[in-house]
């Protein structure tokens, strides 16, 4: 009795399957007292649904047959191999895209920025009727040109 309780306690606390299996095989399935604590196959069978309950009643064939007929075209479509032409065209497009990417990233250099001095020419700048110094700024990637002028009493700046 004590031994059975001990085994039952061990079975409850042991989380390891093979140790539980060992207890089942070497005690729980052999000990009459422990065996009596389990439902017998006859008892269980009387409680469960069995094949006999459905033998005449259920005919699943109409549903299954319909589903099979519907699934055949789907199956064929899924198994249809990719045509040779399609495979070649796909590969060609893929290679073309790769080439374009490589050319765009590696080969094509960014357009050179035009310096303000090359694009514009100021013959003279005067402030208060006197020649002044002029500075030209062109921000990168824009067409804008800023002209900065400063008084210069001694020089007159000409740009060619």
């Amino acid at each position, binding site marked *: 009795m004590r031994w059975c309780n001990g085994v039952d306690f061990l079975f409850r606390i042991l989380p390891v*399957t*093979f140790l*539980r*299996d060992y207890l*089942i*095989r070497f005690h*729980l*399935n052999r000990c009459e007292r422990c065996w009596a*604590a*389990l*439902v017998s*196959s006859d*008892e*269980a*069978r*009387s*409680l*469960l*649904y*069995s*094949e*006999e*309950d*459905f*033998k005449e009643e*259920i*005919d*699943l*064939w109409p*549903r*299954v*047959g319909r*589903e*099979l007929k519907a*699934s055949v075209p789907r*199956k064929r479509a899924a198994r249809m191999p990719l045509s040779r032409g399609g495979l070649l065209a796909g590969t060609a497009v893929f290679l073309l895209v790769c080439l374009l990417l490589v050319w765009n990233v590696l080969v094509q250099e960014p357009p050179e920025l035009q310096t303000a001095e090359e694009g514009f020419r100021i013959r003279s700048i005067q402030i208060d009727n006197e020649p002044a110094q002029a500075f030209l700024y062109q921000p990168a990637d824009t067409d804008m040109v800023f002209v900065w002028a400063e008084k210069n009493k001694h020089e007159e700046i000409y740009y060619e």
Partner: protein
Amino acid sequence: MGSEEDFRRLMHKYTGKAMAMALNLLGNKEDAEDVCQDTFVRIYNHLESFDFNRNFKDWMYAILHNRCMDLLRKRVRFSKYAVYQSGGMNENRDEGLTTPPKAKKLPSEFLKRLSPKERTALVLWANESYSSEEIAEVLRCSASTARVFLYKARKKIKNCLEEDNALV
């Protein structure tokens, strides 16, 4: 692959077994029919991959068990969603076990106490007299694990019956 007529005969032979297993696992006749239908369609579509050294019934039960497990998982997800939607009003809902429409044999309260794998082990053992090794084949686990599932199921059902008798 055989003809549809051959398959129909095969299906007719195993429909009862499949339905019994599905209903014992799911507790709902409509779901059991759906799962059986899906199982037979899968069997038909994969007959060419069937290993003829293997027992057909084991193979069918393995597929059926997996389909039932999928459905039970879906039910758990749906019931969680339903509880969330209703603000916890459905807390008493079980994992999808509803009272079977036919004459009730095993009360769903009893079945709820078993995990799906324990239910499968019990059904195979009681209805088909499967050994632990054969149950393991269906459950895709070791024979030791199958034995533990079966032992726990038998003990839980016995406890349920004793509690039920004590109440009566």
